[in-house]
């Protein structure tokens, strides 16, 4: 996820201080990692340099968190592009799970790879249960539910992969360590 585009999106509703941007980011995307203030100001600095936002005012007491920003026409155009752009499907080679299986076969052998897969499945299953509890909590908002749905769907895909990989492990080991 791109923080700069999300900040542009939050500014589309009107000028905001950096502090308000952080607050509204964390409220709207509760399942995302909270933004650090430093990250907000660094991102605003880059957006300003690229002409996508500009300073629109400063409260009397000054200081960086009292500067408010407004989105520019170029910023709106960039935001519009981002919103219609398809994200590149994540290539499986970046997955740490995949890398670990291959490396453990190379370095340690089938038993270690199997133990890893079993332990990883247990961790995924526990997380799946926690996210399901988030969803079924009577206090859950629709936003909480769809954020949990997203994570659940990915964990479920990983779990299927863990299962089939285990069944293929002996063949993979054969192929890698003939």
């Amino acid at each position: 996820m791109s923080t700069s585009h999300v900040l542009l999106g939050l500014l589309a509703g009107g000028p905001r201080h950096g502090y308000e941007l952080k607050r509204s980011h964390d409220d709207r995307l509760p399942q995302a990692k909270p933004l650090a203030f430093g990250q907000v100001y660094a991102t605003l600095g880059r957006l300003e340099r690229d002409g996508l936002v500009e300073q629109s005012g400063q409260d009397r007491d000054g200081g960086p968190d009292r500067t408010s920003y407004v989105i520019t026409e170029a910023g709106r155009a960039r935001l519009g592009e981002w919103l219609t752009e398809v994200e590149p499907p994540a290539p499986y080679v970046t997955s740490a799970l995949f890398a670990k299986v291959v490396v453990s076969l190379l370095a340690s052998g089938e038993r270690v790879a199997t133990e890893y897969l079993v332990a990883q499945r247990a961790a995924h299953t526990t997380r799946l249960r926690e996210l399901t509890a988030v969803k079924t909590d009577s206090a859950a908002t629709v936003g909480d539910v769809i954020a949990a749905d997203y994570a659940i769907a990915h964990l479920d895909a990983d779990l299927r992969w863990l299962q089939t990989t285990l069944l293929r492990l002996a063949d993979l080991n054969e192929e890698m360590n003939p």
Partner: protein
Amino acid sequence: MNTLLQGTALHRAYGPTPALRGVDIEVTEGEIVAVTGPSGCGKSTLLHCLAGIMRVDSGSVRYRDQDIGLWSESARSKLRRTEFGVLFQFGQLVPELTAGENVALPLLLGGVKRREAQKTAEEWLDRFGVAELAGKLPGAMSGGQQQRCAVARAMVTEPRALFADEPTGALDVLTGEQVLGEIVRVAREKGMAVVLVTHEAQIAAYADREISLRDGALDPTGLGLRTRA
């Protein structure tokens, strides 16, 4: 917590086909346990044996520390009617009866007066969001509506254990999620234990704990590892 159900060294075959090969399982009061594993691994057979619907070839099923295999058929039938609820993939409502009559049926069989049974049935239909269907026949309802009625029927006697075999398997994802969410919510509210059979990880995640089977035996890895002979 107290043990509600305990299956020990359960064996069961269909003719020459072994379906359970020495399964141990324990369910405590109010606990939700998922039974998972690939198709044909023995999940449904285990559920039928635990629910006293099917006899085991060897091993024992104990309910509140009593071996129900030693009971007469009529004692087991009473146990099923009063302490257990069962729910299958397809609702299996009586087609000639309205939703209200279907849900009232277990209460009437248990000797509850008609008026009171009807009132309780309506409360349970309401709990599962289908109060307005009370007068309808199953044939006039959608799959999701039928399944909600079936859930109400399985829970109306407030059994100590609910046995659910792929209860949302025939429903679309969102309806399945709602039905399952409601089952879990009501089970927790009433302290009912649930044995939930499923082959899907996302469904099993509604349970407190998961037991995996492979080829009729426990699979502690949950990954379908073959138990080494």
